C-alpha cells in the first residue's frame, strides 16, 4: 500500500556548488510544459490511495512564480489526503509572503528551508545568494503562517572551523524551530566543487563537528543519523522504514510493489512522456538488505516485531547480526535492533556487513 509521494521540481535560479541532484536553470519557457508533463505522469500512475505524506522537493520548488506555483498546487490537489504531512521545500532567496500564503491555502503544512549556513563567507562558497539577515526576516515571516518547519544545515565545508559551526548552530537555536537536518558536505563528482577537485575536511574534524552538533542539539530528539527534531518528519520515516512511495517528476525515485525505479533526468525525454530510465525488481534478499540499510539510520533502529511481521524472520536468528552484537557494534533490546551510538559515526562500516547475506534461509 502506497502512502507517500515525492514530487520533483528541477528548476533553480542559481546552482549550488555542491549539488548533484537533478536540476536545470530556471527558464520560463520550460515551466508550463514541465508542469503539464508532471500532471500527465501523476494522472497516469496515481491510483487514488490516501497519502499520509506528500513531499515537494527540488531543485528549488520555490523558484516558481506565483502563477506557476498555483498551477503546480492545483495539479497536486488530485492527491487524496487525510491528516497528511504535506511538505514543500523552499529557498530563502525566493520564498515570498504571497507564495507562503498560497502554499498554506492549498494545504501545505510543513516547510523545509535550505538555509545551509548562516556564515556569509561559506554562503558565497556554496553559491547561495542569501544573507544571514535575510534568513532571520524570512523565517519570521514564515512563522506567521507555519509552525512545522525544517531547516537544512551543511557542515564540514572546506576551511570551516568548530567555532564557525558552533556559531551556525547558535544561530539556528535562536530561530526556535522544531526540526533540523544536518549534512556533512560530500564532494560529489560532476559538481562544481568536484570539478575543482576540492578536498574534503579532515576526517577528525568532521567527526568533532558531528559530536558538536549532537551536543548542541540536546533539546532535540536525535532520531536519525542526520536529523534532529522536537517533532519527527513523517516523510523521511517513509524512506527509513522501507515503505513504498511514489516518485513523480524529473529524476525522481520511487518504490512501488517490489520495484524500485528512477525517472529520467532528461527534460526532453520527460516532456515526451518517457518517464523511467531505471527499474529494478527486488529480490527478497535485496529488500531485506534495504530494510537494514535504511532502518539502521534511525537511532532507535529496527523494530523486531515489525521485521518478523514483514519477513517472517526472527531477527536474532541471523548470524551476522549476532556477530555484530557480540562485537558490541549493534545493540538488541526487547523491542529494537540499533547501532551502538558509539559506532554511529562509522555506520557505513557496519551496514556493509548486511550486504550479500542470504536472508531467505532464515525464514521460519
Amino acid at each position, binding site marked *: 500500500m502506497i502512502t507517500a509521494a515525492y514530487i520533483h521540481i528541477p528548476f533553480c535560479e542559481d546552482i549550488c556548488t555542491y549539488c548533484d541532484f537533478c536540476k536545470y536553470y530556471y527558464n520560463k519557457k520550460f515551466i508550463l510544459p514541465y508542469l503539464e508533463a508532471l500532471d500527465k505522469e501523476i494522472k497516469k500512475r496515481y491510483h487514488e490511495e490516501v497519502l499520509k505524506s506528500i513531499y515537494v522537493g527540488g531543485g528549488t520548488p520555490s523558484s516558481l512564480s506565483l502563477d506557476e506555483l498555483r498551477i503546480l498546487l492545483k495539479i497536486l490537489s488530485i492527491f487524496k489526503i487525510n491528516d497528511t504531512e504535506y511538505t514543500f521545500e523552499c529557498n530563502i532567496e525566493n520564498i515570498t509572503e504571497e507564495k507562503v500564503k498560497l502554499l498554506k491555502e492549498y494545504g501545505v503544512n510543513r516547510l523545509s528551508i535550505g538555509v545551509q549556513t548562516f556564515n556569509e563567507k561559506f554562503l558565497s562558497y556554496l553559491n547561495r545568494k542569501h544573507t544571514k539577515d535575510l534568513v532571520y526576516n524570512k523565517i519570521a515571516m514564515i512563522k506567521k503562517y507555519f509552525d512545522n518547519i525544517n531547516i537544512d544545515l551543511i557542515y564540514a565545508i572546506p576551511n570551516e572551523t568548530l567555532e564557525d559551526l558552533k556559531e551556525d548552530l547558535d544561530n539556528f537555536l535562536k530561530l526556535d524551530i522544531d526540526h533540523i537536518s544536518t549534512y556533512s558536505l560530500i564532494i560529489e563528482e560532476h559538481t562544481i566543487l568536484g570539478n575543482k577537485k576540492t578536498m574534503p575536511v579532515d576526517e577528525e574534524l568532521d567527526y568533532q563537528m558531528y559530536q558538536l552538533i549532537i551536543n548542541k542539539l540536546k533539546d532535540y530528539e536525535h532520531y536519525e543519523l542526520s536529523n534532529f527534531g522536537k517533532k519527527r518528519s513523517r516523510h523521511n520515516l517513509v524512506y527509513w522504514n522501507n515503505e513504498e512511495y511514489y516518485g513523480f517528476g524529473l529524476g*525522481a525515485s520511487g518504490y512501488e510493489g517490489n520495484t524500485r525505479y528512477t525517472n529520467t533526468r532528461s527534460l526532453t525525454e520527460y516532456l515526451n512522456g518517457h518517464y523511467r530510465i531505471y527499474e529494478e525488481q527486488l529480490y527478497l534478499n535485496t529488500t531485506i538488505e534495504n530494510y537494514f*540499510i535504511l532502518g539502521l539510520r534511525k537511532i532507535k533502529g529496527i523494530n523486531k516485531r515489525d521485521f518478523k511481521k514483514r519477513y517472517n524472520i526472527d531477527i536474532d536468528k541471523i548470524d551476522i547480526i549476532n556477530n555484530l552484537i557480540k562485537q558490541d557494534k549493534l545493540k538488541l533490546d526487547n523491542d529494537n535492533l540499533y547501532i551502538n551510538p558509539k559506532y554511529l559515526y562509522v555506520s*557505513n562500516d557496519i551496514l556493509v556487513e548486511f550486504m550479500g547475506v542470504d536472508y531467505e534461509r532464515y525464514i521460519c
Partner: protein
Amino acid sequence: MKQQNIRNFSIIAHIDHGKSTLADRILEATGAISEREKKDQLLDSMDLERERGITIKLNAVRLNYHYNNEDYLLHLIDTPGHVDFTYEVSRSLAACEGALLVVDAAQGIEAQTLANLYQALDNNLTIIPVINKIDLPNADIPKVTKELVDTVGFDEKDILLVSAKTGVGIKELLEAIIERIPAPKGNINDKLQSLIFDSYFDSYRGIVTLLRVVNGKVKIGDKIKMMATNATYEVTELGYHNPHEIKVNELSAGEVGYLCASIKSIEDVKVGDTITLEDNPCIKPLEGYKPMKPMVFCGLYPIESSKFPDLREALEKLKLNDASLEFEPETSQALGFGFRCGFLGLLHMEIIEERIEREFNIDLIATSPSVVYEVLLTDKSMILVDSPSKLPDRQRIEEIREPYIKTNIFVPSEYIGPIMELCQNKRGNYISMEYIDASRVNIHYEIPLSEIVYDFFDKLKSYTKGYASFDYELVGYKPSNLVKMDILLNGEIVDALSIIVHKDFAYPRGKAIVENLRKLIPRQQFEVPIQAVIGTKAIARADIKAMRKNVLAKCYGGDVSRKRKLLEKQKEGKKRMKMVGSVEVPQEAFLSVLSMEEE
C-alpha cells in the same frame, strides 16, 4: 638422418638482448613457421612469458636446413635467461654441442651473459659469438667487439653481426652453426643414455619429458628407467617439435625430442636425470644431475579461507610443470591455513604468485620471503629454518648461519661509489673488481642472500639509474648475529609479519616496517598500536588512528540505490582485506616489510 648432419645448439643472452626474436627469425629462415603463424616470440608460449619478455620454461625445436647439397637437422634448445633458473640452463646446455652467445650491439656484455657463458664453457660447448641489433642507431660494434675479444677471448673474425629484427646475417649464422658446431658424438649402438632437460604436464598424456638421446636409441614400447628415481615406465609416444608436435617411432643418439610414458608423478621426472632401458641399462648416469633446492621461501595464503583447497589444487597443478616448486601446508594464527612454498628465487616466486592469481583466480596473501637458515642448537644439532616462525627459542640457539652469495655487478665505472655504498649497507664484504673495458667494471661482493631477497634489486636500479646488471652465485653459509623480530598489531603478534634480521639493522628496519604498516592499514573502528618487538623489548611503535569517516549524506528522495552502490564499493574493498584478530589488514601489508624506504 645421419648423425654427422645433426647440430644441437642453444642461445644464451641477457634479458632484452633479443634472444627470442633471433629464435623466431631462425624458425622463419628454416621454414619452420609460416608467415601466417608468426606472432612475436613464438617459443615463449605462456602469456606471462610474452608479457614479461622472458622465457621461463624451455622449448626445443627441430629445424631442417639445406646447405652445400646436404640436409641438416638443427635442434634449437631454448633456455631461460634468468639467474633463478641457472640449473635448468645448465641442463639444457648439457643437451647441446654448441651455443650462440648473443650480445646487444648497444648494451655490450652483461652479468647474465657471462654467467651463462661460463656454464656453456663448463659443458665444453662450441661458442659462436653474435652481436645482435646491429641495426640500432646507437649500436657500437667496435666497442662490443673489443669487449668480446678482451673479456672472453674470442677471435675477432669469429664474431657474427646480425639483426634479428631485419634478418641481416641470419643466413650466415645458420651456416656458421653447421660449419662450426660439432656433430653429436654418441654411439647409436651403445646402451640407451638420454638426458632429461625439461618436462611439462599434459592432461591427456601425463608428464611429457624433453630429452636428448646421448647414446643408443629409444623406441615406442620400450621399458625405460629413470636412473635417479628408479621409476620405470613403458614408452607410449615419441616425437619432436617443429614447433608443432610430430610423432616418430624412435629417437636415436644425437636427436632431441619428447617422450611420453603415461607418467603421472612429476616426482619421478627430474630435470638432469638420465633415462635408460630397464632391461638393458647403461652402467652409469650422465653427469651433472643434482636435485634442485629452493632458495627462497614464503607463505601463501588465500584471502578467503574457504579457498584453501583450491590453492592446494593450484599448487599441485603448477608443480606438474615445475618440479622446483615446493610446498607444504602451514598454519598461521593470523592468516589461517596456507602453504609454505619454496622457490628457486624471487622471480620464480613472483611468477608462481601471479599465475595462481591469474590462472586460478585465487586472491593471495604472500608473506615476506625468507631464505633458509642453518641453526646450530646448544645440543650441537643442526636444523634448517625456512620461516621465522620455525626459529627455536633463543636460549636453545648456539649460532645462526645464513646463506651468502657472490655478486657479479656489471656497471659503468662512474657508479662504483654508489654500488659500494649499497653493498656495504647490505652487509656486503668487498672481494674484488675487474675492468671489462675502459668504462665498465664487474664488482664482486659477498652479501647475505636475505639482503638480496629484501630490496636489493630495487635499490640497485635506483642507485645506478638502471645501468647495472646483476647476477650471483651461492658461496655457502656463514654465522651472523641474527634475531627474530615480531610485529604486534593491537598487542597481538602477527606471526605472518615476523622476520629474521641482523641485530645491527633491527632498529631502523623495525621503525620502517611499523611506519609502513601505519600507512598501509586503513583506519579501524578503534585505535590500533603497531609495535616491532625483539624478544620482549619493543623497539618501534606507531598508532593507527580510529576511523572517523562516515557519509552522512542526504538520502535524496529515498534513493537507496546510490547508498547501495557506495556500500557495495566499500564491501569490494573489504574483500581484499584479511581479518587479523580484530584488525582488517590489506593484502599489501604482508609484503610491506620488503618495500620501504629506510631512513
